[in-house]
């Protein structure tokens, strides 16, 4: 696919620890076009954050390795880019919002300086005054009074801190924004505010976004497409209608939706998916969801299912073959 902003092909990531090799991502294909928002959903340990860190090439030193695959961002093949060039890409073309705003700001530097830092790194041509003006306008953009830029992170509330983090991420108007559970650490009312703001900014700046979350409600509200991750691969991908509609879905996706409590029904218990994700140090040969799948057949254990595509909807499951 050409014309895509981000294109990941056959990505494999391994964490090599002293005891064993952890296969975190196993043949991931993913693409995001300009202005699009993709929701990346999956349970803890499915490889969502690892995917984001691979795009930034910030996998932990000497532990995380991209063993196979290509990541093309805005026409540049990232796996071949040197660390020095990568520093110019980070924050400029692609930016990341981290999960916890409490810890992703430096406690001893005034927040305005922290926004300024990104600009001084990537917009060398700007004068001191122009940078000052930029910082003020970015503060206004995320709904914070510029007069508070001299204050330290501990003087702000959680929601305001996340606004500052978003301001930092958007200050150079990146083409792609990776948001790693941007609202998980916030309480529900603030979550809605921050999400609204992100949607507005995204439309205003025409930024593409990968939104990592396990909140299916947030995805429905913000995303154009959804990808469901399980054990390091994408098992289902499609438009919001494909996944939230009444059509057939991957058994795991069914399980995810089934585990949400219903507001209208008269249910007394939650419906979790039984079992755990397979051990990433020794993955099963066949379908990775086999152990927990309610619709499994004999073939599923031995042979990994292929990706079955129909229109915008693709599913990695034998049930959808042919």
């Amino acid at each position, binding site marked *: 696919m050409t014309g895509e902003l981000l294109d990941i092909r056959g990505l494999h990531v391994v964490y090599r620890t002293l005891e064993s090799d952890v296969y975190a991502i196993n043949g991931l294909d993913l693409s995001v076009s300009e202005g699009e928002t993709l929701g990346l959903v999956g349970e803890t340990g499915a490889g969502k954050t690892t995917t984001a860190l691979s795009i*930034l090439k*910030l996998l932990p030193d000497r532990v995380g390795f991209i063993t196979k695959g290509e990541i093309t961002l805005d026409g540049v093949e990232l796996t071949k880019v040197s660390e020095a060039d990568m520093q110019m890409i980070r924050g400029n073309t692609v*930016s990341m919002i981290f999960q*916890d705003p409490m*810890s*992703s700001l430096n406690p*001893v530097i005034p927040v305005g300086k922290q926004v300024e830092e990104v600009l001084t790194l990537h917009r060398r041509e700007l004068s001191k005054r122009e940078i000052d003006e930029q910082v003020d306008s970015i503060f206004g953009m995320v709904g914070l009074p510029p007069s508070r830029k001299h204050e330290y992170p501990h003087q702000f509330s959680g929601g305001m801190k996340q606004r500052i983090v978003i301001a930092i991420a958007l200050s150079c108007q990146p083409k792609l924004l990776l948001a790693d559970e941007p609202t998980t650490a916030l309480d529900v009312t603030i979550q809605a505010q921050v999400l609204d703001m992100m949607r507005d900014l995204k439309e205003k700046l025409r930024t593409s976004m990968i939104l990592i979350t396990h909140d299916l409600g947030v995805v429905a509200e913000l995303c154009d497409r959804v990808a469901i991750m399980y054990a390091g691969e994408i098992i289902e991908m499609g438009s919001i209608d494909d996944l939230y509609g009444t059509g057939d879905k991957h058994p795991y996706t069914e399980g995810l939706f089934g585990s949400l409590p219903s507001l209208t029904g008269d249910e007394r218990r939650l419906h979790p998916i039984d079992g755990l994700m397979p051990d990433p140090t020794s993955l099963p040969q066949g379908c990775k969801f086999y152990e927990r799948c309610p619709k499994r057949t004999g073939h599923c254990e031995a042979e990994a299912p292929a990706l079955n595509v129909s229109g915008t909807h693709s599913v990695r499951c034998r049930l959808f073959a042919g």
Partner: protein
Amino acid sequence: MSEAAVRGKSQWKSVWIRFRKSTISLMGLSMLAALLLISGSAGIWIDYESQAIQHNMKQRLQHPSAEHFFGTDQFGRDVFARVVFGARISLLVGILTITLSLAIGSVIGSIAGYYGGRVGNLLMRMMDVLLSIPAILMAISIVAALGNGMFNLIIALTVSGVPRFAYIVRSIVLTIKNQEFVEAAKAYGSSNSRIILRHVLPNAIGPIVVQATTNMANSILLISSLSFVGLGMPSSTPEWGSMLSDAKQYMRHNPYLILFPGMAIVTAVMALNLIGDGLRDALDPKLRN
């Protein structure tokens, strides 16, 4: 948190507010300020050559009086003048030593902590070797090899000070480098050296300052000890340790010869330790209120 700490622009302001609450630390600070002031301005109102250096046998071993506040020594030199000029040496050598070992130790500690791996291991094992030799023995052997004098004294004390700072800085860097804001700084394109300088070290400044004050107290003690055994400054130079050493033979009849330099050492060391204690409390976020 007090109102000023919330409104104030700088953390140091709130640190100062907490520091001020401890009378005993304020006492230490004023003692150090007095020492710096008196020794700094000494050149104006005391003539170094005639009072502290030249022998004046007619006036030898005089007890304290209005003319000689602390009396005179066996060569007729004014003890007050020598104590005051001695403070210059101790403080100057102390400050230079701390600055040097802080700079070198921070570089070594940052590299070892941030990059880790083989290089970090090698650096820290070298620090281990330095630490395994007692500071005084290390200083004695270095001065013995290089000879007396202020410059060599500074080298000797720096060598024994570096590993302590390297260890402190490394341990702080290790805890800070895994925090999310460092990851975030990488994610918006900061280089490693920029992260160390702008994000990691500023977070380490509290413990480093505390270590620096207590280390400076130790350095002052070491300078005096070395001079006492004749390995510090040349014996004509007014220095607290060598004054004590000279006074040994006269202390029975002229106890003030040992009393005043001794008190000077105690004052300087105590002042620095009190300041260090106060800073430790003022900088500890767990004790903030």
